[in-house]
């Protein structure tokens, strides 16, 4: 049996805008992924430990609060601290993110940033293509 791709859809920090995350969770489900949704207001530690315990392949962080540069690197660092390996998974960010910050986030280890209006099929394709690519690169 082919392993199912597990995706954590996370809302971090003080941000009550969960429509996007919920719609994404639903469409990823329809695309055959196993999706774990965290609910609102999680801390970076909570998201990181969930990512490790649930052994997910993809961590998708949704932010509309403007605190992405502060919170996203924390999630990545805590995943490492809890014994996980961010190089084995895809770290995706979604939300209202200024173009300059997208460059910054990618330097911090984020694989891709999706801004409002992105077709969900694009996110699905990205995961299906990039996850095996990144794993291969990490192994060699």
């Amino acid at each position: 049996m082919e392993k199912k791709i597990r995706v954590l859809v996370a809302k971090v920090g003080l941000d009550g805008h969960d429509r996007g995350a919920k719609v994404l969770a639903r469409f990823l489900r329809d695309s055959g992924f196993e999706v774990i949704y965290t609910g609102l207001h999680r801390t970076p530690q909570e998201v990181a430990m969930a990512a490790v315990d649930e052994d997910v392949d993809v961590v998708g962080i949704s932010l509309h609060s403007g605190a992405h540069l502060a919170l996203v690197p924390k999630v990545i660092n805590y995943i490492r601290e809890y014994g996980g390996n961010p190089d084995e998974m895809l770290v995706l960010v979604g939300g209202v993110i200024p173009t300059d910050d997208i460059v910054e986030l990618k330097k911090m280890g984020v694989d891709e940033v999706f801004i409002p209006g992105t077709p969900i099929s694009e996110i699905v394709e990205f995961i299906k293509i990039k996850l095996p690519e990144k794993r291969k690169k990490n192994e060699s």
Partner: protein
Amino acid sequence: MKVEELVEGLLSGNRRALARAITYVENDYPESKEIMKRIFTKTGKAHIVGLTGFPGVGKSTLVSKLTEEFRKRGKKVGIVAIDPGSPFTGGALLGDRLRLDGMDSRKPLWTDPGIFFRSMSSRGRAGGLAAKTGDVVRLLDAFGFDVILVETVGAGQSEVDIIEVADTSVVVMMPETGDEIQINKAGILEIGDIYVVNKADLGGAEKVERWLKYMLSLDEESVQMLSQMTHADEARVASGEFFERRKGWNPPVVKTVADKGEGIAELADAIEEHFKYMKETGLIEKRRRERMKRELFEIVTDDIIKLVKEKTNYRDVIEKLVRNEIDPYTAAERIVEEVLKSGEKG
């Protein structure tokens, strides 16, 4: 990770190793058999508690509150929460974890090292559990959790697989889900060691409580009546292990309001009491014996089918069956003979 690394890590308390071992087992990787072989002797200590009930009765919220309560009592808690996987796309939305701590981030349930929460998809399987639930529970057991809570898929009326895994089965209900006829139907409402009427602050909770108690009193009468019948043994066989299962134990009915934390301590007491009762009366060994027998037979069956596929020309036999040249009973006898002979040769 290699099997050795995983097993050592798991047994020495490394969460990452536990998480990865679960992935291997859940997906039936070739390494999973070896992992299970190596950890099995370390299992058998945990109290495995199953929670089942209709969708939306509050199972996940109860799991969260019970986890908190058992942590207060100094116990380490592992949780396996199963949600339905789509039989069409294979996808799943696993939404049990988000109830953990009821979004109150002052409670550190998500980052407490004494808690491990794993979401699983049923992957289209009926029965209320995921295929590998039993083995995943064993991994948590070997890791050293004292209590393991297994939350089933929101079950309908006949999803009773939880009794194959749990020592204590908790059936969760709520007001206004049906009358006493619903409660007397077979299936999920026969399997409880403990019954919970959640959302007890809604109207009608007393009615459900009364109906449940009435149903349970009828169970006792049924047992008595059966034992007085001249063909009592046959009746016992016909009614399966059901009446034997909880002989001597009167399942309590506990009222809770999970999101407000009401009745949770009482429920935790009832769960602990049931465990104590089972250990004192030897019921736990009896249940585990039944379970091990079933599991052993399942594994042996799988192995034999594998042998049939490898060692016999079963495809030809199927063709003959299709053409009505042979009957299935004779065909099966010949295949069994062939397998046995191949064993002698090899």
